[in-house]
């Protein structure tokens, strides 16, 4: 190591911060190409049916308008993902409201809007399936033979035989969560140029350049080297720009291909909300049995997510939700069945947490109820059941993390004044106009792809050095606000013993960067960051050949050796590729083993006030304690937690997707309500740092974790305040009023 001050552990300012605060950062809608047309999408007005006729109305110079239908697609009319079931453009049949049918392009945006209005699509309706129950009943089969995209069953022990084994308390419950819109403030958009001679290039707002790359290759039947995907500055993603951008990129490119001109396709807010993916709605049924000492003896969990009309990522969302359904607890006899079902709504998709927040909501609400039934305080009951190192999880993973959930919970309860408040609030006047409550949730979140996912991705990172000794990090991992550019700079700088300022991060462009995998699953820091660190070590070994000492060199010496090497060999590059860990075992067939290389562990405490006249709920204080390994950048890490908690508060209390005939009826920021600066409590964030040997400098994943805890913590607090048993979110004032009405007869 050199004598540089380590960058890791310091709050190095966001490296692209200056461009962002001055308005100079370039997002997709800021890109204009010469001769560029604008594009729009014409969508299905009905949830399900057969397209009978498409007519083009009067008053539009249709000869000037580029019109693309399914018949214009040069390759396969399939959005490449898991199953080949989703078309780029509906061809004869529509399977959900707002499904894309036609594309239009013109230079004049106003004329284009008029053109969109003048397209009439006649559809012979078919019965739509709009709820999880209807999907499971399979009266109308809309997907496969039974409307089920995927089923997982994970089990330990013998659940069916365990209910007599000293079980003194059995609790059953059903818990539901609603859809949630990602609501990144920058709507989706793409710009494309495409022609048979030069191939296809798209620029856009995205999380996963290589997902789009693969999808475009199939859509245009072109070899990989004729497709280029470039990420622009991206105004938030949260999962919402994981898979859907493949569709927008394809649409923009199809229009450009036919028009022979560049095409910009930007969604307005209403279109983005009504047509793109949301968090899967879910239903969790839990039956648990506890013995006289408060230990869990048996748990039977049934977890269902609504996947929408096409499979998209639902099996993977389901997998994560199923594995996290048992939480950070040990139960000797446990079975979790997870199912993802098809309905006639736009496909639900990736959203921070990816299925885990849904099943954890059900479990953590159930744990409070099961504690009460067993005559134990919520924290006593959990403490009796926390999983310990050496114990085996539901999915068959022997816990090797040195986890101490009890200590994390103790710290969170102490920081929030939980015990004193729990007693004081319970003694409050039950007829008071405002009632206070406090509640918590304990949970964990696995980082990186599930099971053997990272082995299959086999991600690659490359570092290259210029003659001047500047290091350039080449990855496909996108900066979407979470700090990729800054933490990669810190990791590379420390591994090389140079300044953060000496490191550049290449713009993700598939013509330049290797495939480091998608920017999802809390994997960017832990998995890709580790590859950055490994590639940096490889670079140092190469420089040792020209005399760079292993330790104690100066920054100038590093730069000098780089120049010497580049003069001798022309280029200086080093790469690292993910290879399967021998100590991590996963069986894809049995679906058991080490589901994740590591977990982050957390306890979140919420304090609330409930106005018993208006039923408005306010979160007054929020404490988030988590163990995420080494914290690379304290300001960025705390920002991740605070932002995730805010989204969790929104999901719990405000964000209500209203469905009408399979279509989001409130697709506006006016009536889909997310938290404003005036709605949030102080969000107090604390880290335990237990270095993880397989992450860069000991770091684990962090991005999704904070989405898991807020909703159950808040609902447990509201239950404490009101005495009402709440089983569903969002818990809007209307929903709470109805529950209180029921409770009071």
């Amino acid at each position, binding site marked *: 190591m050199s004598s540089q001050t380590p960058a890791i552990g310091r*709050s190095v*300012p*966001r490296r*692209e*911060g*200056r*461009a*962002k*605060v*001055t*308005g*100079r*950062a*370039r*997002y997709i*809608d*800021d890109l204009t190409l010469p001769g560029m047309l604008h594009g729009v999408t014409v969508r299905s007005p009905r949830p399900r049916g057969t397209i009978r006729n498409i007519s083009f109305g009067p008053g539009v110079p249709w000869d000037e308008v580029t019109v693309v239908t399914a018949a214009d697609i040069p390759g396969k009319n399939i959005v490449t993902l898991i199953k080949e079931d989703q078309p780029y453009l509906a061809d004869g049949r529509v399977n959900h409201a707002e499904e894309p049918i036609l594309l239009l392009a013109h230079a004049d945006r106003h004329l284009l809007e008029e053109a969109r209005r003048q397209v009439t699509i006649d559809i012979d309706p078919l019965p739509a399936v709009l709820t999880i129950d209807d999907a499971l009943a399979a009266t109308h089969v809309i997907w496969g033979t039974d409307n089920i995209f995927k089923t997982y069953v994970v089990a330990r022990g013998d659940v069916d035989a365990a209910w007599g084994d000293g079980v003194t308390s059995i609790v059953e419950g059903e818990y539901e969560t609603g859809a949630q819109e*990602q*609501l*990144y*403030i*920058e*709507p989706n958009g793409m710009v494309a140029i495409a022609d048979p001679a030069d191939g296809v290039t798209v620029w856009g707002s995205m999380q996963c350049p290589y997902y789009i790359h693969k999808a475009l290759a199939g859509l245009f039947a072109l070899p990989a080297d004729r497709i280029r995907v470039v990420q622009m*500055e*991206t*105004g*938030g*993603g*949260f999962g919402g720009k994981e898979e859907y951008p493949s569709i927008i990129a394809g649409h923009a490119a199809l229009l450009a291909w036919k028009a022979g001109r560049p095409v910009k396709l930007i969604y*307005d*807010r209403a279109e983005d909300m009504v047509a793109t993916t949301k968090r899967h709605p879910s239903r969790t049924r839990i039956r648990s049995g506890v013995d006289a000492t408060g230990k869990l003896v048996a748990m039977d969990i049934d977890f269902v997510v609504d996947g929408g009309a096409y499979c998209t990522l639902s099996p993977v969302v389901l997998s994560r939700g199923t594995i996290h359904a048992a939480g950070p607890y040990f139960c000797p006899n446990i079975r979790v069945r997870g199912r993802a079902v098809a309905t006639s709504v736009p496909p639900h998709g990736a959203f921070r947490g990816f299925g885990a927040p849904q099943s954890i909501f059900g479990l953590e609400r159930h744990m409070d109820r099961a504690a009460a039934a067993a005559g134990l305080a919520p924290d006593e009951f959990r403490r009796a059941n926390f999983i310990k190192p050496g114990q085996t999880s539901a999915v068959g993973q022997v816990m090797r993390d040195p986890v101490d959930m009890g200590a994390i919970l103790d710290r969170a309860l102490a920081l929030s004044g939980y015990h004193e408040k729990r007693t004081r609030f319970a003694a409050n006047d039950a007829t008071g106009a405002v009632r206070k409550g406090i509640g918590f949730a304990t949970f964990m979140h696995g980082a990186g792809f599930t099971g053997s996912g990272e082995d299959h991705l086999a991600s690659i990172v490359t570092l290259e050095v210029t003659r001047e000794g500047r290091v350039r990090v080449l990855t496909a991992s996108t900066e*979407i*606000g*979470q*700090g990729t550019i800054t933490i990669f700079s810190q990791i590379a700088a420390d591994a090389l013993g140079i300044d953060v300022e000496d490191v550049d991060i290449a713009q993700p462009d598939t013509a330049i960067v290797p495939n480091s995998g998608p920017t999802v699953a809390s994997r960017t820091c832990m998995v890709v960051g580790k590859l950055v660190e490994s590639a940096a070590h490889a670079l140092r070994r190469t420089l040792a050949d020209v005399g760079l000492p292993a330790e104690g060199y100066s920054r100038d010496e590093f730069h000098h050796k780089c120049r010497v090497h580049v003069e001798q060999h022309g280029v200086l590059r080093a790469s690292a590729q993910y290879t399967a860990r021998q100590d991590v075992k996963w069986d894809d067939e049995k679906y058991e083993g080490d589901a994740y290389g590591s977990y982050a562990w957390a306890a979140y405490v919420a304090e609330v006030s409930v106005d018993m006249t208006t039923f408005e709920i306010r979160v007054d204080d929020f404490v988030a304690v988590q163990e995420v390994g080494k914290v690379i950048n304290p*300001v*960025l890490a*705390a*920002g991740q937690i*605070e*932002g*995730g*908690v*805010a*989204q969790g508060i929104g999901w719990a209390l405000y964000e209500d997707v209203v469905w009408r005939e399979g279509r989001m009826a409130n697709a*506006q*920021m*006016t009536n889909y309500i*997310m*938290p*404003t*600066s*005036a709605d*949030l409590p*102080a*969000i107090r964030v604390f880290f335990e740092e237990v270095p993880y040997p397989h992450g860069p400098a000991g770091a684990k994943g962090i991005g999704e974790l904070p989405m898991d805890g807020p909703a159950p913590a808040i609902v447990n607090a509201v239950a404490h305040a009101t005495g009402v048993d709440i089983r569903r979110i969002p818990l809007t004032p209307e929903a709470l009023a109805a529950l209180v009405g029921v409770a009071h007869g």
Partner: protein
Amino acid sequence: MNGEAVSLQGHPMSRLLDVLRTTLRLTGTKEGCGEGECGACAVTIDGRLVNSCLIPLLQAEGTSIVTIEGISSGDELHAVQQAFIEYGGAQCGICTPGMVLAATVLLDRVAEPCLEDVQHALAGNLCRCTGYMRIFEAVLAAVKYHRPPGVVA
């Protein structure tokens, strides 16, 4: 416009947002919702914070408009911009121009704002990334080295 006289012709009902972004190529002003809810398109007109997606061009005639491009002087950042970088007030950055403008309007109006003032002043600017905590910190930190016009240090 950002301290300079600008003369242009456009449809009187054009959205100021489109004129800024398309005609004047001032793309620092962003569109988030197009209905005045998110504040990504915020600019100031005669010192007042407005959502430029709701302002017809005719209403802008003869006024003094400041966009994010007019906030810093040369290479020197405004105190709010500097604090946003230092305190982590910007994540994805799409709300940042509007958020910075909203904060500068507050600081010009209130010399020593408290947390509640900041929360209230920014309530029309939505941020989905930060949970606002670091934005509050940044604005309160900027108070220390910002002097509103007419206030003698």
